[in-house]
């Protein structure tokens, strides 16, 4: 029998992998993908909790997260398109203008 904590372990590891990706990768598109991984880790965790408590609140949260993710990707990728057309790069380290 699989229990809640095993799902949480998977979710936690997935989140760690996503964070690692955001931290080490330099390609903006991949970084956005890794953010998706983190969101999905949270989704898995919420779904597991929803199952654990036997109510639907967690699933509703996941629904909302999916909505937010869709919007975020649409706008984020549009930003990336602008980035490439303006600066011809997808490297996050080339876009450090926003500082003092």
């Amino acid at each position, binding site marked *: 029998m699989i229990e809640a904590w095993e799902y949480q372990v998977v979710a936690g*590891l997935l989140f760690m*992998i996503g964070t690692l990706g955001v931290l080490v990768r330099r390609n903006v598109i991949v970084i956005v993908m890794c953010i998706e991984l983190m969101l999905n880790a949270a989704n898995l965790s919420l779904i597991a909790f929803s199952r*654990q408590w036997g109510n639907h609140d967690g699933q*509703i949260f996941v*629904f909302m997260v*999916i909505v937010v993710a869709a919007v975020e990707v649409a706008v984020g990728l549009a930003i990336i398109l602008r980035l490439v057309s303006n600066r011809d790069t997808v490297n996050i380290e080339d876009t450090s203008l926003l500082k003092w």
Partner: protein
Amino acid sequence: MTEQVIFYVSAFVALISAAGVVLNVRNTLYAALCLVITMLSLAVLFILLNAEFIGVLQVMVYAGAIVVLFLFVIMLLNIRGGDMGADRQPVLKVIGTLLIVGASVKLVPLLSESRRAWPEVGPEFGTVRAIGGTLYTDYLLAFEIAGVLLLAGIVGAVVMGKQRID
């Protein structure tokens, strides 16, 4: 027994392909494909957790739309490589990686301490009707705000995507 096998296989695939997203430094497209596989395995886990509607939604939205968008952009920009240029902050990243690895190692024993029995859930749990019922009553405001958010997202994407901003 079947449940265990499905869980371990899906979890393993999810983690491996997630690692694939991160570690695949040479080809962005493969990273996107790894992401799809992660999403699909997560959908399997969701369905295993009786969240069937959300599982299907996961496939529809993440695999069917979001990652396709990624593919679209990768192909539109014709990005054939992966990361480019030299790393400017290697020390930071090494420390961060160590932190993450350390936290991951602590994670398993930490979470395994709190065991709690799975409750039985009825056949209604996780169905479209049940989720819809909750969504349109208790979470109606959140649902409507989500609608507004989507609209804002559409407008934002259109404005950002225009070639020339007047």
